[in-house]
Protein backbone atom coordinates (compact mmCIF):
# COMPACT_ATOMS: atom_id res chain seq x y z
CA UNK A 1 0.00 0.00 0.00
CA UNK A 2 1.19 3.50 -0.70
CA UNK A 3 0.50 6.39 1.64
CA UNK A 4 0.76 10.01 0.57
CA UNK A 5 1.89 12.31 3.36
CA UNK A 6 0.95 15.92 2.65
CA UNK A 7 3.65 18.44 3.57
CA UNK A 8 2.68 22.03 4.32
CA UNK A 9 5.57 24.39 5.05
CA UNK A 10 4.81 24.20 8.77
CA UNK A 11 4.05 20.49 9.00
CA UNK A 12 6.23 18.94 11.66
CA UNK A 13 4.78 15.47 12.14
CA UNK A 14 5.14 14.59 8.45
CA UNK A 15 8.27 12.56 9.02
CA UNK A 16 6.68 10.80 11.99
CA UNK A 17 3.69 9.65 9.94
CA UNK A 18 6.02 8.61 7.13
CA UNK A 19 8.18 6.64 9.57
CA UNK A 20 5.20 4.93 11.20
CA UNK A 21 3.86 3.50 7.96
CA UNK A 22 7.20 2.73 6.32
CA UNK A 23 9.63 1.67 9.06
CA UNK A 24 7.08 0.26 11.49
CA UNK A 25 4.65 -1.30 9.03
CA UNK A 26 6.79 -1.84 5.94
CA UNK A 27 4.45 -0.01 3.56
CA UNK A 28 5.35 2.53 0.91
CA UNK A 29 4.90 6.26 1.36
CA UNK A 30 5.77 9.49 -0.32
CA UNK A 31 5.73 13.14 0.66
CA UNK A 32 3.43 15.42 -1.33
CA UNK A 33 4.34 19.13 -1.32
CA UNK A 34 1.53 21.60 -0.60
CA UNK A 35 1.63 23.29 -3.97
CA UNK A 36 1.23 20.02 -5.84
CA UNK A 37 -2.05 19.75 -7.70
CA UNK A 38 -1.84 15.98 -7.96
CA UNK A 39 -1.54 13.15 -5.46
CA UNK A 40 0.10 10.72 -7.84
CA UNK A 41 -0.65 7.05 -7.31
CA UNK A 42 -1.24 6.97 -3.57
CA UNK A 43 -3.85 4.70 -2.00
CA UNK A 44 -4.45 6.77 1.12
CA UNK A 45 -3.68 10.32 2.20
CA UNK A 46 -2.37 11.45 5.57
CA UNK A 47 -2.59 15.10 6.60
CA UNK A 48 -0.01 15.23 9.39
CA UNK A 49 0.33 17.37 12.48
CA UNK A 50 2.12 20.68 12.70
CA UNK A 51 1.32 24.31 11.99
CA UNK A 52 0.47 24.22 8.28
CA UNK A 53 1.12 27.84 7.36
CA UNK A 54 2.03 29.10 10.81
CA UNK A 55 -1.62 28.99 11.86
CA UNK A 56 -1.56 32.59 12.99
CA UNK A 57 -5.07 33.26 11.67
CA UNK A 58 -6.77 30.02 12.72
CA UNK A 59 -5.37 26.52 12.66
CA UNK A 60 -5.73 25.18 9.16
CA UNK A 61 -7.42 28.33 7.84
CA UNK A 62 -4.91 29.06 5.09
CA UNK A 63 -4.13 25.44 4.30
CA UNK A 64 -7.61 24.82 2.97
CA UNK A 65 -6.84 27.08 -0.02
CA UNK A 66 -3.65 25.25 -1.02
CA UNK A 67 -3.47 23.46 -4.37
CA UNK A 68 -2.92 20.11 -2.71
CA UNK A 69 -6.20 20.46 -0.82
CA UNK A 70 -8.08 20.67 -4.11
CA UNK A 71 -6.50 17.35 -5.02
CA UNK A 72 -7.35 15.92 -1.59
CA UNK A 73 -10.98 17.02 -2.02
CA UNK A 74 -11.22 15.18 -5.31
CA UNK A 75 -9.51 12.14 -3.88
CA UNK A 76 -11.95 12.08 -0.97
CA UNK A 77 -14.94 12.63 -3.26
CA UNK A 78 -13.86 9.57 -5.19
CA UNK A 79 -13.87 7.54 -2.00
CA UNK A 80 -10.16 7.56 -1.27
CA UNK A 81 -9.29 7.32 2.45
CA UNK A 82 -8.06 10.56 3.99
CA UNK A 83 -6.70 10.67 7.54
CA UNK A 84 -6.15 14.02 9.25
CA UNK A 85 -4.11 13.92 12.44
CA UNK A 86 -4.06 16.89 14.82
CA UNK A 87 -3.36 19.87 12.53
CA UNK A 88 -4.55 17.63 9.70
CA UNK A 89 -7.90 17.33 11.48
CA UNK A 90 -8.00 21.13 11.84
CA UNK A 91 -7.34 21.49 8.11
CA UNK A 92 -10.11 19.02 7.28
CA UNK A 93 -12.74 20.88 9.30
CA UNK A 94 -11.63 24.23 7.91
CA UNK A 95 -11.84 22.77 4.42
CA UNK A 96 -15.36 21.56 5.13
CA UNK A 97 -14.48 17.90 4.61
CA UNK A 98 -15.54 17.26 8.19
CA UNK A 99 -18.14 19.14 10.25
CA UNK A 100 -17.51 21.30 13.30
CA UNK A 101 -14.46 23.21 14.45
CA UNK A 102 -11.49 22.85 16.77
CA UNK A 103 -11.09 25.65 19.25
CA UNK A 104 -8.75 26.60 22.07
CA UNK A 105 -8.36 23.95 24.77
CA UNK A 106 -10.64 24.59 27.72
CA UNK A 107 -7.61 25.14 29.98
CA UNK A 108 -6.09 27.56 27.40
CA UNK A 109 -2.77 25.73 27.46
CA UNK A 110 -1.04 23.46 25.02
CA UNK A 111 -1.24 19.90 26.36
CA UNK A 112 1.15 17.08 25.54
CA UNK A 113 0.32 13.78 27.22
CA UNK A 114 -0.95 10.31 26.69
CA UNK A 115 -4.73 9.92 26.71
CA UNK A 116 -7.00 6.90 26.61
CA UNK A 117 -9.37 6.65 23.66
CA UNK A 118 -12.39 4.40 23.35
CA UNK A 119 -12.97 3.03 19.86
CA UNK A 120 -16.62 3.86 19.22
CA UNK A 121 -17.06 2.29 15.83
CA UNK A 122 -15.24 -0.26 13.73
CA UNK A 123 -17.36 0.57 10.70
CA UNK A 124 -14.65 2.65 9.05
CA UNK A 125 -11.53 2.02 6.99
CA UNK A 126 -9.51 3.47 9.89
CA UNK A 127 -10.78 1.21 12.67
CA UNK A 128 -11.88 -1.98 10.90
CA UNK A 129 -8.99 -3.87 12.48
CA UNK A 130 -9.87 -2.69 16.00
CA UNK A 131 -12.46 -4.02 18.42
CA UNK A 132 -15.50 -1.94 19.25
CA UNK A 133 -14.91 -0.48 22.71
CA UNK A 134 -11.19 -1.13 22.48
CA UNK A 135 -9.23 1.35 24.58
CA UNK A 136 -6.13 2.81 22.95
CA UNK A 137 -3.31 4.68 24.69
CA UNK A 138 -2.31 7.46 22.29
CA UNK A 139 -0.64 10.84 22.93
CA UNK A 140 -2.14 14.24 22.25
CA UNK A 141 -0.12 17.41 21.62
CA UNK A 142 -2.21 20.46 20.81
CA UNK A 143 -3.36 23.87 21.97
CA UNK A 144 -6.55 23.99 19.92
CA UNK A 145 -8.13 20.58 20.06
CA UNK A 146 -11.44 21.24 21.74
CA UNK A 147 -14.02 19.81 19.34
CA UNK A 148 -16.99 22.08 18.83
CA UNK A 149 -20.16 21.74 16.76
CA UNK A 150 -23.77 22.71 17.28
CA UNK A 151 -26.11 20.22 18.92
CA UNK A 152 -27.76 19.26 15.68
CA UNK A 153 -24.41 18.33 14.13
CA UNK A 154 -23.37 16.45 17.24
CA UNK A 155 -26.64 14.52 17.29
CA UNK A 156 -26.21 13.71 13.65
CA UNK A 157 -22.66 12.48 14.16
CA UNK A 158 -23.87 10.18 16.87
CA UNK A 159 -26.97 9.02 15.02
CA UNK A 160 -24.86 8.13 12.00
CA UNK A 161 -22.21 6.35 14.08
CA UNK A 162 -19.57 8.80 12.91
CA UNK A 163 -17.82 9.41 16.24
CA UNK A 164 -14.78 7.15 15.93
CA UNK A 165 -12.90 7.89 19.14
CA UNK A 166 -13.91 9.41 22.45
CA UNK A 167 -11.62 10.50 25.27
CA UNK A 168 -12.02 8.51 28.47
CA UNK A 169 -10.53 11.47 30.35
CA UNK A 170 -11.42 14.52 28.27
CA UNK A 171 -8.27 16.69 28.30
CA UNK A 172 -9.43 19.73 26.32
CA UNK A 173 -13.15 20.27 26.81
CA UNK A 174 -14.22 18.63 23.54
CA UNK A 175 -18.00 18.41 23.32
CA UNK A 176 -19.29 14.92 24.04
CA UNK A 177 -15.66 13.83 24.59
CA UNK A 178 -15.11 13.64 20.85
CA UNK A 179 -11.53 12.86 19.80
CA UNK A 180 -12.12 11.74 16.22
CA UNK A 181 -14.92 11.78 13.65
CA UNK A 182 -15.79 10.44 10.20
CA UNK A 183 -17.25 12.08 7.14
CA UNK A 184 -20.72 10.97 6.08
CA UNK A 185 -19.19 8.68 3.47
CA UNK A 186 -16.88 7.34 6.21
CA UNK A 187 -13.70 7.64 4.12
CA UNK A 188 -12.41 10.85 5.73
CA UNK A 189 -11.36 10.77 9.37
CA UNK A 190 -9.96 13.49 11.59
CA UNK A 191 -8.53 12.86 15.04
CA UNK A 192 -6.64 15.10 17.45
CA UNK A 193 -4.53 12.32 19.09
CA UNK A 194 -1.41 11.13 17.30
CA UNK A 195 -1.57 7.45 16.30
CA UNK A 196 1.82 7.77 14.58
CA UNK A 197 3.40 8.58 17.94
CA UNK A 198 1.99 5.37 19.39
CA UNK A 199 3.39 3.06 16.77
CA UNK A 200 6.37 1.49 18.49
CA UNK A 201 6.48 -0.20 21.91
CA UNK A 202 9.82 1.53 22.49
CA UNK A 203 7.95 4.84 22.45
CA UNK A 204 5.62 3.66 25.19
CA UNK A 205 2.66 2.46 23.12
CA UNK A 206 1.96 0.78 19.80
CA UNK A 207 -1.81 1.17 20.12
CA UNK A 208 -1.99 3.73 17.32
CA UNK A 209 -0.85 1.21 14.72
CA UNK A 210 -4.35 -0.19 14.44
CA UNK A 211 -5.43 2.92 12.53
CA UNK A 212 -2.84 2.33 9.80
CA UNK A 213 -3.28 -1.46 9.92
CA UNK A 214 -6.98 -1.01 9.30
CA UNK A 215 -6.22 1.00 6.18
CA UNK A 216 -3.72 -1.57 4.97
CA UNK A 217 -6.05 -4.48 5.60
CA UNK A 218 -8.94 -2.65 3.93
CA UNK A 219 -6.89 -1.92 0.87
CA UNK A 220 -5.75 -5.55 0.62
CA UNK A 221 -9.21 -7.05 0.92
CA UNK A 222 -11.41 -4.60 -0.97
CA UNK A 223 -9.84 -2.05 -3.27
CA UNK A 224 -12.54 0.55 -2.94
CA UNK A 225 -13.52 2.74 -5.85
CA UNK A 226 -10.18 2.12 -7.46
CA UNK A 227 -11.62 2.93 -10.85
CA UNK A 228 -12.82 6.31 -9.59
CA UNK A 229 -9.52 7.07 -8.01
CA UNK A 230 -7.77 6.01 -11.18
CA UNK A 231 -10.01 8.35 -13.13
CA UNK A 232 -8.92 11.46 -11.25
CA UNK A 233 -5.22 10.79 -11.63
Amino acid at each position, binding site marked *: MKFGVIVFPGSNCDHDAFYAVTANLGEKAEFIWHDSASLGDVDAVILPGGFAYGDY*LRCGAIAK*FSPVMQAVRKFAAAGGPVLGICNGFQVLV*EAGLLPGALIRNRGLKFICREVRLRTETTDSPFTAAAQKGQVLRVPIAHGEGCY*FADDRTLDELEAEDRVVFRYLDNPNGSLRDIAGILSRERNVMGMMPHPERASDPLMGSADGLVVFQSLIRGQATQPRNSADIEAIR
Partner: protein
Amino acid sequence: MKARVFVSLKSTVLDPQGQTVRSALNGLGYHGIAGVRQGKFFDIALAEGVTREQAQKEIETIAHEVLANPVIEEYRVEILD
Protein backbone atom coordinates in the same frame (compact mmCIF):
# COMPACT_ATOMS: atom_id res chain seq x y z
CA MET B 1 -9.34 53.90 2.46
CA LYS B 2 -9.11 51.29 5.15
CA ALA B 3 -11.23 48.44 6.29
CA ARG B 4 -11.51 46.94 9.71
CA VAL B 5 -12.88 43.46 10.31
CA PHE B 6 -13.86 42.44 13.82
CA VAL B 7 -13.98 38.71 14.48
CA SER B 8 -15.25 37.14 17.68
CA LEU B 9 -16.56 33.81 18.85
CA LYS B 10 -20.30 33.37 18.49
CA SER B 11 -22.14 33.88 21.73
CA THR B 12 -23.02 30.19 21.77
CA VAL B 13 -19.35 29.17 21.73
CA LEU B 14 -17.43 28.96 24.95
CA ASP B 15 -14.75 31.64 25.22
CA PRO B 16 -12.28 30.46 27.87
CA GLN B 17 -9.94 33.39 27.20
CA GLY B 18 -12.70 35.90 27.86
CA GLN B 19 -13.73 34.01 30.98
CA THR B 20 -10.17 34.04 32.25
CA VAL B 21 -9.90 37.78 31.71
CA ARG B 22 -13.18 38.30 33.49
CA SER B 23 -12.18 36.30 36.54
CA ALA B 24 -8.82 38.11 36.61
CA LEU B 25 -10.59 41.48 36.53
CA ASN B 26 -12.96 40.41 39.29
CA GLY B 27 -9.93 39.21 41.23
CA LEU B 28 -8.34 42.64 40.85
CA GLY B 29 -11.38 44.19 42.46
CA TYR B 30 -13.32 45.32 39.38
CA HIS B 31 -16.63 43.97 40.58
CA GLY B 32 -18.65 45.82 38.00
CA ILE B 33 -17.50 43.45 35.27
CA ALA B 34 -20.14 40.86 34.45
CA GLY B 35 -18.65 39.33 31.34
CA VAL B 36 -15.77 39.60 28.87
CA ARG B 37 -15.59 38.15 25.40
CA GLN B 38 -12.35 38.25 23.49
CA GLY B 39 -11.97 38.71 19.77
CA LYS B 40 -9.58 40.11 17.23
CA PHE B 41 -9.63 42.69 14.50
CA PHE B 42 -7.83 43.10 11.21
CA ASP B 43 -6.72 46.48 9.88
CA ILE B 44 -6.73 46.27 6.13
CA ALA B 45 -5.30 48.97 3.88
CA LEU B 46 -7.05 49.18 0.52
CA ALA B 47 -5.26 49.97 -2.69
CA GLU B 48 -5.72 53.32 -4.43
CA GLY B 49 -8.70 53.50 -6.72
CA VAL B 50 -10.83 50.86 -5.03
CA THR B 51 -14.39 52.14 -4.62
CA ARG B 52 -16.31 51.93 -1.40
CA GLU B 53 -18.78 49.46 -2.92
CA GLN B 54 -16.04 47.23 -4.28
CA ALA B 55 -14.29 47.34 -0.95
CA GLN B 56 -17.43 46.51 1.01
CA LYS B 57 -18.15 43.53 -1.22
CA GLU B 58 -14.64 42.18 -1.31
CA ILE B 59 -13.98 42.59 2.39
CA GLU B 60 -17.27 40.87 3.22
CA THR B 61 -16.18 37.91 1.11
CA ILE B 62 -12.73 37.82 2.66
CA ALA B 63 -14.20 38.02 6.15
CA HIS B 64 -16.57 35.18 5.45
CA GLU B 65 -14.21 32.93 3.55
CA VAL B 66 -10.87 33.55 5.21
CA LEU B 67 -10.75 35.74 8.31
CA ALA B 68 -13.62 34.13 10.19
CA ASN B 69 -14.74 30.55 10.51
CA PRO B 70 -18.54 30.78 10.35
CA VAL B 71 -18.86 27.54 12.30
CA ILE B 72 -17.63 29.24 15.46
CA GLU B 73 -17.12 32.90 14.70
CA GLU B 74 -19.07 35.98 13.70
CA TYR B 75 -17.67 39.13 12.12
CA ARG B 76 -18.40 42.74 11.42
CA VAL B 77 -16.90 44.84 8.63
CA GLU B 78 -16.23 48.57 8.83
CA ILE B 79 -15.00 50.65 5.92
CA LEU B 80 -13.10 53.72 7.06
CA ASP B 81 -12.02 56.71 4.99
